[in-house]
């Protein structure tokens, strides 16, 4: 009878290995280990996270800040916070229901609507901009087969042009999605008040994401209908618009709604930069006035909105998938 461990060892040796993947995992593991062992936040005596601004590489342990995490001052702060959580019912309100109705009427409802509107406007703008661009980022359209029939072989210059077109558009998508929405909006706020900075920031970031996902959807598409259209004399633009667009629309709509969900999440937060979404009332209004009861209410409204967005998106996606 053979030794089972020998078999296991043999199987293990035979398993495929990938250097890049192993190096990636190793780097990742070492990074996590290093962070917990050598930096500054205290977790039961283990330090994590650099704190002071003077330490340029930040991996020293600023002990006073570490102790501060669980200092008595923090606990007093927490007590004060909890003490202010109960709804402050005024005389006109009468009951908690009146308090809720007043806040919803004055701020909550319009803040929720604005949050939703920013998310919708941004994702529609992103989708409208991504739709014409994503065809240029699909590798399977940027070559001779099946778009050009035999007899007219394109030269090397044409191939170079195609390749640079695809990498150019894909590179553009990478850059558009690299910066977080919050940073984009922070810079765009100089354009002036109103919802434009938030909408533009969300649209730019999501254009990068939708563009890449859309290009990948086109790359995964079955090209035989496109070949038939080509044989019937369709041009490249006609193939993209009349064959591939209907063919890939369902998948694209799935991604569109998936990104809309995260737009709702981000739209709540972008209010902190001035547009009157829920984030504005959470941070700049309620917290600034130390009205923690209101703050929690708006936080909950944001959570409800995000979960409702998820639900709507899931329902629409299921409907589209079955259509």
């Amino acid at each position, binding site marked *: 009878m053979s030794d089972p461990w020998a078999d296991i060892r043999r199987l293990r040796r035979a398993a495929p290995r990938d250097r890049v993947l192993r190096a990636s995992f190793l780097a*990742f593991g070492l990074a996590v280990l290093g962070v917990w062992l050598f930096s500054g936040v205290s977790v039961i005596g283990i330090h*994590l996270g650099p704190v002071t601004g003077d330490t340029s590489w930040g991996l020293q342990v600023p002990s006073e800040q570490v102790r501060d995490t669980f200092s008595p001052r923090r606990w007093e702060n927490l007590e004060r916070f909890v003490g202010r959580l109960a709804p402050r019912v005024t005389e006109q309100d009468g009951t908690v229901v009146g308090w809720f109705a007043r806040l919803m009427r004055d701020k909550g409802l319009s803040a929720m609507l*604005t949050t939703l509107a920013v998310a919708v*406007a941004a994702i529609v703008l992103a989708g409208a901009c991504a739709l014409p661009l994503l065809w240029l980022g699909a590798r399977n359209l940027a070559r001779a087969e099946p778009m050009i029939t035999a007899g007219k072989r394109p030269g090397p210059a044409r191939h170079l042009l195609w390749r640079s077109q695809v990498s150019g558009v894909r590179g553009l998508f990478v850059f558009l999605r690299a*910066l977080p929405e919050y940073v984009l909006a922070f810079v765009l706020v100089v354009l002036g008040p109103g919802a434009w900075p938030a909408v533009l920031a969300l649209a730019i970031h999501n254009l990068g994401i939708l563009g890449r996902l859309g290009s990948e959807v086109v790359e995964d598409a079955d090209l035989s209908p496109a070949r038939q259209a080509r044989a019937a004399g369709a041009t490249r633009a006609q193939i993209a618009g009349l064959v591939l667009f209907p063919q890939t629309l369902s998948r694209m709509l799935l991604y569109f709604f998936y990104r809309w969900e995260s737009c709702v999440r981000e739209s709540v937060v972008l209010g902190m930069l001035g547009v009157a979404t829920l984030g504005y009332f959470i941070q700049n209004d309620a917290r600034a006035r130390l009205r923690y009861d209101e703050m929690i209410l708006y936080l909950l409204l*944001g959570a409800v909105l995000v979960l409702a967005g998820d639900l709507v998106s899931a329902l629409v996606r299921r409907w589209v998938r079955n259509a």
Partner: protein
Amino acid sequence: MITTPTPTHRALPLRPFPIGARAVVLVAVAVAGLLAAWYLGLHPAKLVPAPDARGLVADVFGSAVSPAVAYESEGLPSDIDPLLVRVGGAALRTLVYAAAGMSLVVLFGLVLGFFASTAWWADEEVGASDPASQSAWLVLRYCVYGVARIVIAVMRSTHELLWAVLFMAAMGLTPLAAVIALAIPHTGILAKIFAEMVDEAPRDSANHLRVLGASPLQQYLFGLLPRARNDLIAYTFYRFECLVRGSAVIGFFGIETIGKYIRDAFDNRHFHEMWTYIYALLIVVVVLDLWSGVVRRRLS
């Protein structure tokens, strides 16, 4: 006599519009977009800054082409680090916070994802022979599943910055609190996706293990998880990218990541320096994006 040939087949009925039901969605989306734009008062003319703000706009965006390589303010003490070292430190700290958050995210995401998945629920019960304990096990299972789903929904329904605001109001934002705030929503999202991926993974190995007498946990760990492994790893890499963005942004609340430096440079009107930090963040995220693209391609 000439006879016209009669058609031997009838043409298939054509759908009136090639897109069908999806056209409804497209039109609804367009209408919703216009309604939203109308509600927010988005007019292209409003994109043109007011005359008195034009100088600032030109300053901010004009500086984008010439990011600073040295401090903009004069007369700084000579012993402080050069600007680029500071930028590097800020970028590194952004990664440090993201890595710290990620270790929590993966750990708790896997655990929550296990409880939120149904794939390990064996059809015939293990270790419970009498119907009473079997139904108790069933009830327990559904309770754990429900609680896990609710916890996941609560975690991901609130953005990391809002968790940070909450912590800030409650105790003040320490680095540890920032890491936890970062980790909470991403843990929820990761757990949800983990559960879905494991539930959709092929069940063949898990079924074999069950026939051999493996417990549900063993089936999950050695039958289901390895089958979903590649998808899980690819998605985890993508989450890390998101965490790096979140870690940068949490700096706007005073944590020493890139966001804090962007805000400070803006407040001091050092716009060239601000773009240096923005470009540093851009480079970090683009490198990660390309790296995770390589990993994804190798996994599939």
